[in-house]
């Protein structure tokens, strides 16, 4: 655990309080802060695979995009349209659905996105968990790239020209608010990120967390000790893709328009941000990815517009510097610096009791 229990509790309360107040304090930045919650979700779910289990996936963004498409298709179906006709008309259909249809569609869509991504992860796990180290990274990168290309050629879901999603109807959840839709999705994003955090926090405290770390440290040994490695790996990927699917569905509805290469499967933007954020904060820790996501996102949003076309160069440089010179990340660095704070210590009294050992 990163800090003593009281400190962590305070941190949680602070983050939660900020999350609840922020949209009202900075109404102009609702979308950016909502995106920050998605980034936190990204970093947490990537870290389950890359940080805790040592399976560095470069293609986790696949589940984001898959969730986005599944959610969209379900929303269209619940809205009473034929998906093929809807996408073929490319926005020419005047979407006319009731409020109830919209909200049921959205929530069934999000649930379907989550469950669908779990299924996809199980199938992909079956085919790709025989790959280790760099091969897994390249293979998952391939999955994300292939998904973008193949969806782009699939007419039924709109191909390369994408899908416009039904618009948010007026409702009275936040009476008197100027940006009702923004608030609605903001709180959904926040809720899913918080749920992700609480879920993984619980998960890492069970045997599951230990097994993931064992697989990371020495998978062959773990097999030799009889750990059901395939089972753990599959479930870990499934958990991670469950939340990624939801985030995809939400993001699709926030941007209203989805298409395969830039929005749904943005391998070299969101896909690599996940990795960069986890590494920046410190992979394999609970709070590291969150810290990394916040820092990364804030730096990015603040500096982006001032870089005039050089922002992507800057992004690449950040990744290089991060990976090459500062791999342990912020929390990892703190652990090296202050090991006692993290419970790494020799108990001298106890050594006396348990004497008669080696050296």
């Amino acid at each position, binding site marked *: 655990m990163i800090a003593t229990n009281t400190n962590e509790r305070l941190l949680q309360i602070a983050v939660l309080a900020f999350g609840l107040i922020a949209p009202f304090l900075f109404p102009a930045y609702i979308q950016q802060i909502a995106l920050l919650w998605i980034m936190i979700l990204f970093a947490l779910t990537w870290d389950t695979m890359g940080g805790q289990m040592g399976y560095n996936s470069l293609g986790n963004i696949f589940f984001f995009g898959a969730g986005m498409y599944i959610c969209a298709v379900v929303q269209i179906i619940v809205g009473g349209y034929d998906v093929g006709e809807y996408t073929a008309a490319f926005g020419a259909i005047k979407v006319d659905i009731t409020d109830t249809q919209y909200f049921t569609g959205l929530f069934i869509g999000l649930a379907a996105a989550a469950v669908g991504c779990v299924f996809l992860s199980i199938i992909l796990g079956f085919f790709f968990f025989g790959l*280790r180290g*760099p*091969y897994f990274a*390249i293979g998952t990168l391939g999955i994300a790239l*292939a998904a973008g290309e193949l969806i782009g*050629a699939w007419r039924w879901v709109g191909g390369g020209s994408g899908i416009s999603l039904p618009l948010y109807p007026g409702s009275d959840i936040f009476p008197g608010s100027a940006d009702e839709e923004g608030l609605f999705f903001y709180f959904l994003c926040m809720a899913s990120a918080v749920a992700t955090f609480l879920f993984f926090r619980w998960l890492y405290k069970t045997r599951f967390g230990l097994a993931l770390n064992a697989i990371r440290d020495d998978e062959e040994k773990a097999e030799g000790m009889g750990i059901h490695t395939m089972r753990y790996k599959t479930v870990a990927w499934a958990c991670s893709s469950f939340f990624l699917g939801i985030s995809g569905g939400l993001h699709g509805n926030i941007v209203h328009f989805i298409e395969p290469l830039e929005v749904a499967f943005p391998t070299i933007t969101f896909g690599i941000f996940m990795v960069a954020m986890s590494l920046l904060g410190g992979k394999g820790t609970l709070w590291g990815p969150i810290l990394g996501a916040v820092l990364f996102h804030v730096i990015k949003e603040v500096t982006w517009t001032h870089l005039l076309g050089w922002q*992507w*160069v800057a992004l690449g440089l950040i990744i290089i510097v991060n990976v*090459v010179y500062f*791999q342990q990340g912020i929390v990892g660095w703190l652990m090296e610096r202050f090991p006692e704070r993290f419970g790494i210590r020799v108990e001298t009294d106890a050594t006396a009791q348990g004497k008669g050992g080696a050296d």
Partner: protein
Amino acid sequence: MWGSIEVLLSLPAYNVGLILNGLCVGAVFALAAYGLALVWGVMNVKNLAQGEFVIMGGYLAWYIAKTTGMNPLLTLPIVAVLMFVFGWAIYVLMIRRVVDKDLFTSLLATFGLAIVMQQALNLAFGPEVQVAQFGRGSVSMMGGIVSILEIKFWAFGMCILLAGAVVAFMKFSRMGQAIRATSQDARAARVMGINTDRVYAFTYALNSAICGAAGVLVAMIMVIQPYYGVTHSVRSFVIVTAAGIGNLPGVIMSALGLGVIEQYSGFVLGAEFQVATVVVMLLLVLIWRQYQASRIRQVVR
């Protein structure tokens, strides 16, 4: 799609055209793949910026040819030298620090490098698709049914020449021998007094030069665009994964095979499936390798 297959079945000459085209293009893929196998085998660096090196070489050739009026094929030695220097600089700046780190580090660091290079190329040359004009027409064969750009044959010849030169270099020169020794056992090589840091630098620079040369040919027989590098990187990984590291004949065969497969998929499915074909090939090769490994109770690592 079925129409295209019918054409292939009824007009066998079309197949000849596709295969010849595929072999010429595949030969160029083999160069970049060999470079990847080299850095992978010698210094255990998975260079995800491989495709960007190719595209950068292509842009250099295109730019030199455009500004000086040279034939792009003649710029090949200049580009190779420039890319050699570039590769050496990249090694000194970043690769040196990832060589002995864990495997994911090199992959991610070079992915970062790929992003930087894409964007830098985009800022320098703009996002338009470019072709370096070789300026000689096509060769007609089989009564005009098959017509192949003359440059493709030149490219094929250049590939054989370059590959032969590299193989001879590895075999007979002192540096080549040092590279091979280091790839077998870096520690032993160090103990024997080989400056492995220099060997690594040279290997990486050599890879960069090979990619640059491949890029010159790519600029003439295909098209270049700042973001097209990813596909070339994936191609290199497909080829090396299928062949295994340190298997030169395997690399050549897989590269030629990939070239032919791409031509067929382009003809049958359409040009928009070009990238998809390459990436799906990568997934298939990885699955196949796992199946092979699992039969001897192993995994692909």
